[in-house]
């Protein structure tokens, strides 16, 4: 089975894999039994849409689906239903894995397997051909329900998981805790790296601002914690985290956008004193996860850097100006590695495609490299921003707005944690903000909508984003 074949876990099968607030403990042996029982129902290697939550039933389902060599797409359980319906029509998955509470939404499908409050529903779609290397599909843009998915192979996933687990020095004695939804590629990677190490995950939907989270954190003696920049912001300002020396905590990891230099500095300095590690990871969904890391040791000296490539990752900076051969030339960050995904899928026919990238990824990020080989991001070539670690495509929001509001002209720009929408059309700013917030699953306070007389355009007819100001 997947988890055993891909990684040799040197642990007893009695080792606990998942534990929750009710004290429910699920061992690896039990998870392997769930996977075997699922297999015994006669399920085939088919596409499964999983509506994910941080619940044992859901994560056990993900473990089993992977173990049985089925191909999951992890989605937010709260995904807007119109978008979900569109995705289901596009990809025609053979199965859905959902919370039993939501069965009534799909009366036409029948349940064929159940586990801890979740169940596998068989849809009425014909089987879709899947490429033999395909292991999992990842979404490219948070919760916009974009049909553009990343095709990740077994080799990709194994390579990425090993890189992260080794970087964090995970062993079967480690204990993690869920800090983000499983449908974020970082959330999934955290699960994978624990399972491949035979380590334990504490499963909770509580946030770091809830007492319940910290009770579980201490009770279970959690050894590692992952967070997006906003998590660090919360830990620094709203929780007594920096004033408390949790002896059981060994390492913190960070991805999902740039950590503020202040947070990076205070966490690094504190962790050095306490003998803990802060690992700053930079990655791309197209690379199945992490690509570079910055260690605690170099954290202050290389403040603001995304670090150096993981062992096995090759990096190159492709200069915008080929004649510029100076040492600190900036250009597009390009990686070569076994974790680089096979390519995208836009429809169900694409799922039978093999590797189209040859393990090379043009990231769309502009960077420079210093004399010690440390990489510094300078900006983006493509139009993506991150809001609380959630990747959002600005071009997609423009399309979503145009579909929703007849005759609207709009242009989106923004930076991490702030989306700016400019539009011309007879609609209220508040209405636009609330719609965008709902559809993207983000708080409206991170969105600024501005009504303008017209959208500035260049001579070519393309939107002149530089001229948009609020």
């Amino acid at each position: 089975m997947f988890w055993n074949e891909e990684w040799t876990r040197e642990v007893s099968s009695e080792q606990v894999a998942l534990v929750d607030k009710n004290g429910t403990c699920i061992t690896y042996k039990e998870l392997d039994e769930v996977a075997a029982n699922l297999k015994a129902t006669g399920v085939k290697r088919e596409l499964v849409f999983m509506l994910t939550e941080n619940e044992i039933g859901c994560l056990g389902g993900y473990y089993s689906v992977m173990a049985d060599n089925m191909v999951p797409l992890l989605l937010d359980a709260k995904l807007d239903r119109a978008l979900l319906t569109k995705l289901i029509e596009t990809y025609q998955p053979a199965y859905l894995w959902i919370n039993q509470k939501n069965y009534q939404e799909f009366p036409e499908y029948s349940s064929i397997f159940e586990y801890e409050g979740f169940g596998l529903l068989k849809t009425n779609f014909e089987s879709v051909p899947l490429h033999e290397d395909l292991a999992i599909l990842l979404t490219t843009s948070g919760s916009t329900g974009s049909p553009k998915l990343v095709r990740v192979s077994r080799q990709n996933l194994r390579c990425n998981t090993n890189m992260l687990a080794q970087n964090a020095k995970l062993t079967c004695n480690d204990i993690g805790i869920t800090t983000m939804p499983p449908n974020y590629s970082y959330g999934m990677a955290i699960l994978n790296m624990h399972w491949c190490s035979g380590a334990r995950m504490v499963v909770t939907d509580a946030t770091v601002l809830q007492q319940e989270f910290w009770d579980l954190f201490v009770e279970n003696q959690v050894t590692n914690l992952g967070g997006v920049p906003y998590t660090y912001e919360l830990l620094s300002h709203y929780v007594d985290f920096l004033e408390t020396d949790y002896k059981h905590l060994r390492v913190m990891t960070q991805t999902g956008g740039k950590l503020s230099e202040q947070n990076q500095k205070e966490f690094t300095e504190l962790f050095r004193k306490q003998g803990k590690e802060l690992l700053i990871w930079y990655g791309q969904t197209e690379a199945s996860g992490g690509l570079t890391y910055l260690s605690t040791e170099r954290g202050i000296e290389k403040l603001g850097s995304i670090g150096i490539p993981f062992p096995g990752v090759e990096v190159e900076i492709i200069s915008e100006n080929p004649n510029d051969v100076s040492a600190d030339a900036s250009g597009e960050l390009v990686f070569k590695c076994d974790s680089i995904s096979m390519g995208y899928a836009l429809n169900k026919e694409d799922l039978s495609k093999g590797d189209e990238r040859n393990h090379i990824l043009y990231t769309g990020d502009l960077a420079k490299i210093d004399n010690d080989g440390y990489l510094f991001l300078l900006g983006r070539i493509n139009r993506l921003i991150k809001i609380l670690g959630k990747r959002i495509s600005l071009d997609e929001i423009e399309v979503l707005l145009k579909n929703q509001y007849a005759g609207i002209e709009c242009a989106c720009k923004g930076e991490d944690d702030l989306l700016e929408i400019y539009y011309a059309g007879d609609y209220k700013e508040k209405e636009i903000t609330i719609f965008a917030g709902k559809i993207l699953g983000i708080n409206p306070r991170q969105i600024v909508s501005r009504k303008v007389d017209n959208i500035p355009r260049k001579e070519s007819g393309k939107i002149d984003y530089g001229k948009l100001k609020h």
Partner: protein
Amino acid sequence: MSNLELYREIFINCLMLEEDTELEELSTSNCDEWDSFVHVEMLSQMEKTFQIKMTKADIFQFSSYKSGIEILISKGIELD
């Protein structure tokens, strides 16, 4: 607007709820929209609206519509 109405307004705005939503039983465990970002936002609006200062204990205690009222009362805010 009364203090209670002001308090109610913070919930309606931050959680994007309909004006007439029943809030009495609302808590982090039955409201999906109540994430850590909204949590911080509601607390900072309570600070501004009622001219009070939240402590770290308040941040943890605040987990429902009712517990928010208790926090305000403990800080001497009169809610009719």
